[in-house]
């Protein structure tokens, strides 16, 4: 039972991060019907920028909490700019092109960003300085570290904030209108180009925060860290129903929990035939399963192919 609860906590932590990243995928997809393949790479850039800033600032003797705060802000600024640039350079010119075209530019961009990051930060692992207090709460037999607690609470706050933004503000209303029907939204006086740019900026900001969380949770960052995470977050978005914000959150949490429990129990279930080294397979199995049996996802509305 303790193992179960412990894996559940680990899964929720991981799931909160997936959810933040999945939101970026789902918002862009909701409006453009485009899988922003480079999204995982934006997260990686955010994480590496934050690591550099934290290392630098704590080296100058800044107090840890302040250094982390500045690092998160720096990562967000860099990632938002990057997201804006990506949309402008690689996606906007191709909005009317056949669907394959933006998908291929997205793959190309993802390679470019990885290699540029490898040039800037090297191919090694950057470690997250041990600046956060290593305290943890022991509750029954379950251990919750401070980092886990911070990730879960912060992710919940950010997601609540995003829901308010999308549901209550003028920008959010314009975003929803653009997602429903860009042409009509434009007729109603919505500057759809600007709304799309905002979508990328917001998604990239979320990815930056998620990147810092991943780096803090695992203690390291590397130029390849964004790829697999991006893929899993996309899976989470599809699982929840792509284009649906609440769906991305639910999908993220669910995928995190499935993965953690799966990794914890697969050995017992298969008589040690499969070990936890198969953990990365779960996300893909979930993805294929959802797409085959319930392609609209858990909360997705019925998507009809536009003819």
């Amino acid at each position, binding site marked *: 039972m303790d193992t179960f609860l412990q894996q559940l906590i680990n899964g929720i932590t991981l799931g909160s991060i997936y959810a933040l990243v999945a939101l970026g995928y789902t918002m862009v997809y909701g409006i453009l*019907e*485009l*899988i922003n393949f480079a999204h995982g790479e934006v997260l990686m850039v955010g994480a590496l920028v934050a690591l550099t800033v934290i290392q630098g600032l704590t080296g100058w003797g800044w107090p840890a909490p302040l250094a982390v705060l500045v690092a998160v802000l720096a990562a967000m600024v860099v990632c938002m700019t990057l997201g804006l640039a990506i949309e402008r*350079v*690689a996606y906007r*010119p*191709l909005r009317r*092109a*056949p*669907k*394959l*075209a*933006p*998908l*291929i*530019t997205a*793959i*190309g*961009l*993802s*390679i*470019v*960003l*990885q*290699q*540029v990051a*490898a*040039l800037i930060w090297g191919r090694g692992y950057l470690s997250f300085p041990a600046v956060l207090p290593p305290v943890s709460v022991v509750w029954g037999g379950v251990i919750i570290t401070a980092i886990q607690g911070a990730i879960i609470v912060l992710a919940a706050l950010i997601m609540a904030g995003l829901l308010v933004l999308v549901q209550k503000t003028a920008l959010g209303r314009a975003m929803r209108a653009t997602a429903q029907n860009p042409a009509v939204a434009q007729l109603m006086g919505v500057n759809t180009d600007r709304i799309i740019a905002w979508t990328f900026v917001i998604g990239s900001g979320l990815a930056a925060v998620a990147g810092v969380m991943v780096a803090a949770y695992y203690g390291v960052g590397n130029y390849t860290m964004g790829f697999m995470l991006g*893929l899993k977050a*996309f*899976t989470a978005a*599809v699982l929840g129903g792509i284009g649906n914000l609440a769906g991305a959150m639910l999908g993220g949490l669910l995928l995190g929990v499935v993965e953690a429990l799966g990794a914890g129990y697969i050995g017992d279930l298969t008589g*040690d*035939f*499969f*070990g936890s*080294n*198969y953990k*990365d*397979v779960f*996300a*893909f*199995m979930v*993805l*294929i399963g959802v*797409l*085959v049996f319930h*392609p609209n996802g858990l909360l997705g509305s019925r998507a009809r*192919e536009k*003819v």
Partner: protein
Amino acid sequence: MLLGAAAVLLLVLPFVTDAALGHGWVRILDFALLYVLLALGLNIVVGYAGLLDLGYVAFFAVGAYCYALLASPHFDLHWPLWALLPAGALLAASFGVLLGTPTLGLRGDYLAIVTLGFGEIIRIFLNNLNTPVNITNGPQGVSLIDPLRIGPWSLGQVHHLGGLEIPIVVNIYFLFLVGVLLAIVLSRRLEHSRIGRAWAAIREDEVAAASMGLHTRNLKLLAFAMGASFGGLSGGLFAGFQGFVSPESFTLQESVMILCMVVLGGMGNIAGVVLGAVLLSVLPEALRAAGGLQQDLLGRVWVDPSNLRLLLFGLALVLMMLLRPEGLLPARARQRELHG
């Protein structure tokens, strides 16, 4: 006339290269031919049927491991070549059907992600299927694979024809060349057959194709299986040539690379795909020399050549889509469509 000249050129090319640049460059030619074969296979899926497959390397892996396990001391099996290559192609094709059956109803971009996931799943399994029963020998891979052998002639040793010495890499060159020529003939025949025209119809408008009475699911499955069998065949040739396979050779990067070849050359056009594959497999070798050049010109190596190679690929993909989405040598139909 032109055909004759091309034939002579292809015949003397390996010997000239060998004499002028050494075995290493003939080896590069061998790999270029292997990539042409792979790109032609992917072209059936992406270029003809319009299905974006981001996990194509999985079929290459299946073919390679099929050869490796059936012709090495690992299980102490030593099948002959004429059985190994079809076995690899067939196994890969059945994996294609296995992947395609549940997923081909999906929209294009979902399919891309699922195929990508499939490629990763295959790699993870190859990496981990060494316990509790050792099937793939895990990350160490399978070594001491039997060399390619046609009847009594082993291609893994030097032969003499009259006074002419034929090194191993040249033997391999001719075997791969035969494979590529067969693939080209097959692709051409397919493209203009009833099936090929059906694929084109599905690529352009699936709903319209279905309402014209085409069985779209089966046709798409066929494209998947066909493309996969090319991949499986190349995998077998690769394993026999290298004498060693490990999961490291079958990463997503490799899938993307093959896709780049198809896209840069010109989806759906055989000459374009061949050009793309040759360019992208020979250019990186030239870039490898860029490390030395940087050393000479700038005093130190500023940009790691392998880094540079991928960076340029990524940039090429983006720029190509923005400036010339139809590729270097486009299929006529696609050019019309994009520059109507």
